[in-house]
């Protein structure tokens, strides 16, 4: 079962990414348990985790948020590829931090990035998905952590 400090590692990693990359911390909204279909925004960076814990962590964000984030990072390229790159990097960084916190036996895949509303998110049997809304400026994204 997911422990609080583990969940916090993912959450803090996410908010810290915003703080570090865009000099403006993200806040987290009211967390809840996922029921039914995953809530997906325009771009989703997914990382499969195996080893000590099995499951997925994904960061999904609307195009508008990523655009502003890129702007804050002084990017001028708002292309599709740039958006994909950004969510992938967020997901990768979050999980990398987690791996550092949890040790070597946390095996993390290279992020796969999906655009659109139907990504193939592998369901981990027996793992409930925690949805943590990530609010940044006027935008909202979601961090979903589903680990056994």
């Amino acid at each position, binding site marked *: *079962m*997911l422990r609080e400090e583990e969940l916090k590692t993912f*959450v803090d990693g996410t908010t810290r990414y915003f703080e570090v990359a865009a000099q403006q911390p993200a806040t987290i909204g*009211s*967390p809840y*348990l996922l029921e039914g279909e995953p809530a997906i925004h325009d771009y989703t960076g997914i990382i499969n985790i195996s080893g000590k814990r099995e499951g997925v962590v994904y960061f999904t964000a609307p195009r508008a948020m990523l655009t502003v984030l890129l702007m804050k990072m002084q990017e001028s390229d708002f292309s599709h590829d740039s958006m994909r790159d950004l969510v992938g990097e967020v997901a990768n960084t979050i999980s990398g931090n987690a791996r550092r916190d949890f040790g070597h036996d946390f095996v993390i895949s290279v992020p796969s990035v999906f655009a659109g509303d139907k990504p193939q998110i592998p369901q981990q049997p027996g793992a*409930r998905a*925690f949805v943590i*809304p990530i609010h940044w400026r006027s935008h909202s994204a979601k961090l979903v952590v589903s680990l056994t």
Partner: protein
Amino acid sequence: MQLSGIDRNRRLLTAAAGIVLAAVMSLVLIIGFRLATQIRAGVAMLQQASELETYPAVVAEQLTALRQRLDTLEYTGRVHAELAASVSGFDRDFGALEHQRTLDPAAVRAATRLWRSYAPVLAPVLAYHGEPYSDTATSSALSRNGRVFYAHVRRAELFAAGHTAALHRELATVSGALQAQTASAAARLRLLLSVGVLAVLLLGLAAAYLQLARARGEHAARAAEEQTRDILATVREGFFLLDADYRIGAVWSQALTHLFGRSDFAGLSFEELLRDKVSPETLNTAMKFIKLLWGDRAHENLMKSINPLGQLEVSMDSGRGGKETRYLQFDFHRVMGPGGVKHVLCSVGDITSTVLLTRELHEAQENAHAQVDMMLGMLHSDPLQLGAFLDGAAASLKHVNAILKEPARHHGEFSKKLGGLTRELHALKGEASALNLMSIAQRVHHLEDMVAELTSRSELTGNDFLPLVLKLDELLAHLRGVREMTLRLTALKEGPSAAGSADSAAPSAAGAVGTGELGTALHSLARKLAHDHGKDFQLTLNGLAECPSAYLPTLKDCLIQMLRNAAVHGIETDGVRRAGAKAGAGQVRVDFRRLQNGYELLFEDDGAGLLPETLKAAAVHKGILSPEQAASLDDRSALGLIFKPGFSTSEQVTMDAGRGAGMDVVAKAVYGLGGKIGVSTHPGRFTRFKIALPAISETAVA
């Protein structure tokens, strides 16, 4: 190392001072001896020179005396001999003086020249022999020889008179020079002695100063050493130096003894120190890490984050005879010398309390898991009621999650959730307590406490709700576990596939038991029961899809119960069936029908049926009826006994029937739904249960 270096320098300095002192002293002595010899020779010569000075006057006087004797015709032999002695003495002494190298040659040369000029004049005088007088009877007079001799003497006297003063002056000059020379030698000797004394004094002073400084240095070094020792004995961290062979140096802090439970650190290899404490992989990585410090590529400040011994779990003697787990933090720093890295300083700290603090929560949760097992012992409660409760709880928690899911960004929005959460949780806790489900009640209570704690906060953020949602997840998992266990204990312990259906029958959505899954579960249970009890029967299910979802969970529990009863008590073994002329396999039929004003469930087996007498005997045996009451009971009422609480033959815990799962429970569940239950039987032919349930509108289901 440094202290001994200073020591060595001091010793070298002292030795050098001694050598210098000896050298100076021998120099003074040698020069002094030579000077003294020179002075002695000088003094002797001076004496000679002073004697020499008198010769010219003596020679002149003797010549005059000789001439006067000739004038008065006196005897001249003695005077002549004295003159000859004087001249030869002068020659001898002067010759000796001439050979003195130390004399001023110019002064001696002048005296020599002058004395040599005497020689031609003196020679005829000294060479004279014989009697200078010729005697007559009356008088004596100079003979012819005598007159010549007289003339020579007279000439020599005059020469001497003219040169005596000059010769004396020259000789005085020579002796003056000699005197000056001797005086200067004496002065030099005095100076030398003074210098010698001064040098000895200075060296003595220097030696004394050095000795003093050394004493002071040694004192300071001892004090420093003592302070170092005090620090190493007191500091709470372990400190030691590693050399290029990864061996521990001679100096280390006392804390190591406690940290590693040994004291033989000096010379111990780092690998040896950790071998029993860490995994070979970690040790390997750690050794590579330290090796990086000896290289010149890696920057110490840029590798702190990859230290593999940043938090090391080790097992050590607790000092009370047992083992305990401690967490150590190793830090490594280069110690630079002139030729590069000299040592690696390693510090070891015990960070156990920090680590344990962060793990407290985790352990608390481990304990919670252990409670699941404890809870199993308490599962004496009515399984159907439990099922109903679990359904209600799932619905309630679904609502809780819905409250959480409401978007919120600010304190006000977060705060608004708390009231609804409290109400929902409080009601759930009440139900759980009422059913004596303490493991559930405790969890809900904990959740309620967390919500109450949030209520008192002035500034709420999403972070504050993270523990809540985790706790909610844990509670849901617990409920899932309880449901699973309940099903296993009451009915499905035999079948893994049936247990699988229990999983699928326990989703988070309330009451969402699929009828298809129910059918599968019942069939596999039937197969399992038939196999386990050596019975041969077939299960036929009809119309279960008609069942409204609100009834399904209860119906499922009832059917499982009745199926089990039928398999254990109803259907006979093959032999019995053949003896009774029945068709080979037993039949169990379930028919569910929608009626005009409700629903009907028929459950029928073609087994042994119920014998009123057997039922009465059991009731008497259980103390439900007195033998008299039993005797007066008619058959119909006897059949009704099976719905009485505490009657069920399965009340006893047996492998066959589980526990607390009699028909009384089924009846109670049916009554709970507002339904009715009846039984009819024909001994040796069949047993039939009929359950009537009231109409229900699908949309009214929570």
